[in-house]
């Protein structure tokens, strides 16, 4: 287990993190007691564990100087359990060792070997997994005679193949990651990549698995000894003690409790320690990331003079957000913002990652992550949304407020046909029947410009292109003709040619239905196409808001100007080549349809 520790994580740092974690402390203590009991039992036990005292059988705890009492032969229980720890620890370590020694090479071969060979190894693993550990151990014990080693061998092999399967999946995950690609491009050999990147990154999973193996091994040892397949008579183990006490369980129940408790606590210790070790070796969890690292725009924070609240009369506002503050895990991520949207208005909310713009949108929908503290007020049609019970919020979502998400693939359910997904809000909010909603879905699909809608509603999400999926997302959002549509970076994942069409569609539909649009993006060029007004967010505050034209050409806040300058500096400038080629303007109106159905329907 030790060899798997992440390099660059010094033992002391790991230990400190372990102690700070409550589970680590408990698990570590339990395992330490178990480990400590072994050498102790070698040099000292209160009584000779094998000494039979016919004068003192069945003593209760604390009688006659016996801490946990004596059994039917008058043997000291505490001494027996102390000595039994040897067997338990030995079998736990041996099993884990065998499992790791078998599982890891198998997993590496299956994940990184030549294709045919790897496939063969995978088959082998799958076959080997079918053998039950306990049964194998019993057969081995029957053939070779019961001992720690037959048990450890059986458990180790059985869990080794399990481990191999889990490790293989993990290795493939890490092997496909960008940092392994970067390492390869840096000239790292396969073996070095395994050592430096793959092993450290799969170590957490392996640690947990190995601690599980150790826990199961202690249990299995107890079970085997109990069944009579464990170590032969003179050897003492917890399972053997249980086995010996079993006939007298109704008369002296306490005598079964002690070894049982010892087994249970060791198992618990291994499990807790394994979990804590996983966390302690992860540098991401060890030290808290610095609060909102900034290498972004370099302007002073004193530029909030530009905040001009759009002063609409309260009754005219569709959405009025007042002094909205969101705290997550003690950090203020949205800090007292005010936003107002009139019916049919298009507001662009811009900001960089971490500025709190997406959280603001989620707050309006009441979809903030668990544990977020929200204060302030969010009023839709004059009705307070904050603090509303979930059931009432669900009625608002999809019918009055709807959302289009960034990633069109993950926003659709892959196991549901397109038509069903489009029709879902209609069935939920409008109480439409299956046939009605199916017909409505076809209409909606046609509205958002999907080709061959009658056929397409029967397609699955994976059969559509990215742009088509986003059209489906828009159809779902607009199905119930909401008063407010929130679009969170709806075109970021799309190609530019598709992006243009999607923006045009959003704009057209919102206009046609009189839907207000809250458009969230980091891209100023995009937002300038679909907004009347713009609010600029930074580190949880609205720094400036105002009409699109003013923000673009006469922004008050330094930050806004810096953002615009950055956008202009990196944006494509069609006029740059005009000098070289008189009419450098690309021919407008050329339209390519890149949105083709990728698979036959």
């Amino acid at each position: 287990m030790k060899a798997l520790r992440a390099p660059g994580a010094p033992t002391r740092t790991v230990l400190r993190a372990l102690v700070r974690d409550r589970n680590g402390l408990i698990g570590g203590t339990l395992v330490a007691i178990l480990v400590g009991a072994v050498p102790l039992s070698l040099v000292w036990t209160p009584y000779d564990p094998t000494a039979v005292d016919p004068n003192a059988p069945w003593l209760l705890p604390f009688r006659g100087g016996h801490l946990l009492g004596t059994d039917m032969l008058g043997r000291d229980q505490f001494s027996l359990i102390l000595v039994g720890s040897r067997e338990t620890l030995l079998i736990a370590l041996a099993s884990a060792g065998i499992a790791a020694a078998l599982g890891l090479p198998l997993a590496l071969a299956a994940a990184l070997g030549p294709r045919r060979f790897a496939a063969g190894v995978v088959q082998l693993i799958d076959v080997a997994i079918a053998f039950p550990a306990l049964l194998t151990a019993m057969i081995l014990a029957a053939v070779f005679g019961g001992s720690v080693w037959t048990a450890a061998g059986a458990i180790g092999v059985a869990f080794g193949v399990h481990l191999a399967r889990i490790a293989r999946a993990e290795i493939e995950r890490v092997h496909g990651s960008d940092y392994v690609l970067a390492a390869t491009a840096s000239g790292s050999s396969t073996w070095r990549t395994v050592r430096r990147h793959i092993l450290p990154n799969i170590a957490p999973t392996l640690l947990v698995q190995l601690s599980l193996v150790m826990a199961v091994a202690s249990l299995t040892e107890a079970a085997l000894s109990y069944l009579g397949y464990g170590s032969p008579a003179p050897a003492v183990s917890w399972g053997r003690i249980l086995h010996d006490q079993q006939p007298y369980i109704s008369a002296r129940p306490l005598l079964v409790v002690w070894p049982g408790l010892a087994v249970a606590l060791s198992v618990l210790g291994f499990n807790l320690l394994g979990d804590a070790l996983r966390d302690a070796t992860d540098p991401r969890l060890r030290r808290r990331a610095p609060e909102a690292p900034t290498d972004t725009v370099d302007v002073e924070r004193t530029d909030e003079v530009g905040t001009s609240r759009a002063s609409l009369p309260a009754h005219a506002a569709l959405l009025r957000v007042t002094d909205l503050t969101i705290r997550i895990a003690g950090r203020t991520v949205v800090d007292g913002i005010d936003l107002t949207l009139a019916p049919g208005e298009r507001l662009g909310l811009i900001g960089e990652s971490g500025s709190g713009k997406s959280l603001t949108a989620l707050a309006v929908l009441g979809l903030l992550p668990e544990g977020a503290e929200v204060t302030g007020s969010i009023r839709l049609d004059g009705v307070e949304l904050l603090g509303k019970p979930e059931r009432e919020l669900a009625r608002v979502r999809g019918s009055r407020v709807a959302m289009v998400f960034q990633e069109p693939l993950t926003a659709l359910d892959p196991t549901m046909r397109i038509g069903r997904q489009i029709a879902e809000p209609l069935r939920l909010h409008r109480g439409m029947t299956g046939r009605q909603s199916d017909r409505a879905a076809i209409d909606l699909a046609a509205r958002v410009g999907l080709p061959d809608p009658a056929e397409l509603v029967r397609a699955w999400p994976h059969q559509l292109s990215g742009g088509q999926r986003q059209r489906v997302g828009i159809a779902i959002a607009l199905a119930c003709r909401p008063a407010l549509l929130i679009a969170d970076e709806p075109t970021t994942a799309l190609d530019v040619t598709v992006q243009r069409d999607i923006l045009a569609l959003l704009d057209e539909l919102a206009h046609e239905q009189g839907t207000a649009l809250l458009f969230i993006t980091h891209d100023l060029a995009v937002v300038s196409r679909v907004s009347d007004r713009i609010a600029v967010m930074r580190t949880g505050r609205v720094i400036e808001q105002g009409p699109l034209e003013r923000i673009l050409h006469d922004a008050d806040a330094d930050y806004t100007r810096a953002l615009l300058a950055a956008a202009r500096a990196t944006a494509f400038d069609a006029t740059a080549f005009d000098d070289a080629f008189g009419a450098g303007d690309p021919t407008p109106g050329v339209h390519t349809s890149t949105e083709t159905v990728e698979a036959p329907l």
Partner: protein
Amino acid sequence: MTAPAVLLRAEGLTRTYRLPRRSLWGPAGRRYALRGVDLELVEGDALGVVGESGAGKSTLIRLLLGLDRADAGTVHYRDREVRPGPARSLTWFRREVQIVLQDPMSSLDPRSRVRDIVAEPLECLRVEGDHDARVDEVLAAVGLDPQTRTRYPHEFSGGQRQRIAIARALAPDPRVLVADEPVSALDVSVRAQILDLLRDLTTRLGLSLILVSHDLGVVQHLCNNVLVLKSGEPLESGPSPQVLGNPQHPYTQALLSAIPTLPTHTPHPKPATLTKPAAPDSARPAFEAGKPGRRSTPPSTKGPAPPAQRARLRPPPVGTSEDPGPGRRPECAPREGPWPPTKPKSFISASTAKPERSASTPASPSWTRCAKRSA
């Protein structure tokens, strides 16, 4: 001036992927990820590869870097063939060509410290010299405090992480930098900084650049040549002003017209400072002559390194006119000459200070190519 040397040349690159079988009997379908792509990177050039998703950009990069085997076609670096194979067999190539990946959140091993990340190519490519000093040097060059070498990637912001990734690519002192969408995962303001940094570094260190992007703005600002890909096939290529200013292919035209632009009819108000000045350009001297070993001046501990040190990041640019031939460099000869041979028209800032000719600049001993060759 004679024609500058061709560094990277790809001919007829083709890569297909097998599609899942549609029927039990028919042959499995094949899809072309790349079909007959030719490409040539001349020393000092910045080539932009443009295309939308599915155009084959990533496949092209993998093939160019010898990370994947082509079904047909070849890649040559300085007339020596780049064959994918064991890591050892490509060491010569990887010392010359390094990569910066798209997403700095996933391209850095979360369990490695910055020092180990940046030193990785040095270690793997068995580059001689003091790796720690080199790490400090490149960290300073990308505008990071060398003190950060003991930190883990999660302690940095996206832009800083991309700087670390760039530092890693620069560490073995490559000649060609391949950047796969280097800024598309970053915020707009950070994007400008990273682009500035890339432009600054390529100019100052005499790097040639292959930049893959779907963002024509990025390509326009960094590249003097453009190759447009669609569905794995090359559509149009040539100098940027020609391809982007007067596109011939309808697809390129459509691509250009689809780009969302900011209205720019009024004069821009004075922009606020965007980038922390990487180094005062006016103060940047010619490559220092006769400076002794690199370690004689420890890198500054705070902020970007002073220009003197940064300029020494690399020995003076190689004289392009005297290329001795395939895969060979003048042995330990001082390298000089103007760079870039053709200055890209689209550079926007004034920071493209061309390294001046310096008559006799002995390459610093521990990082010369000679030292590398002897390794």
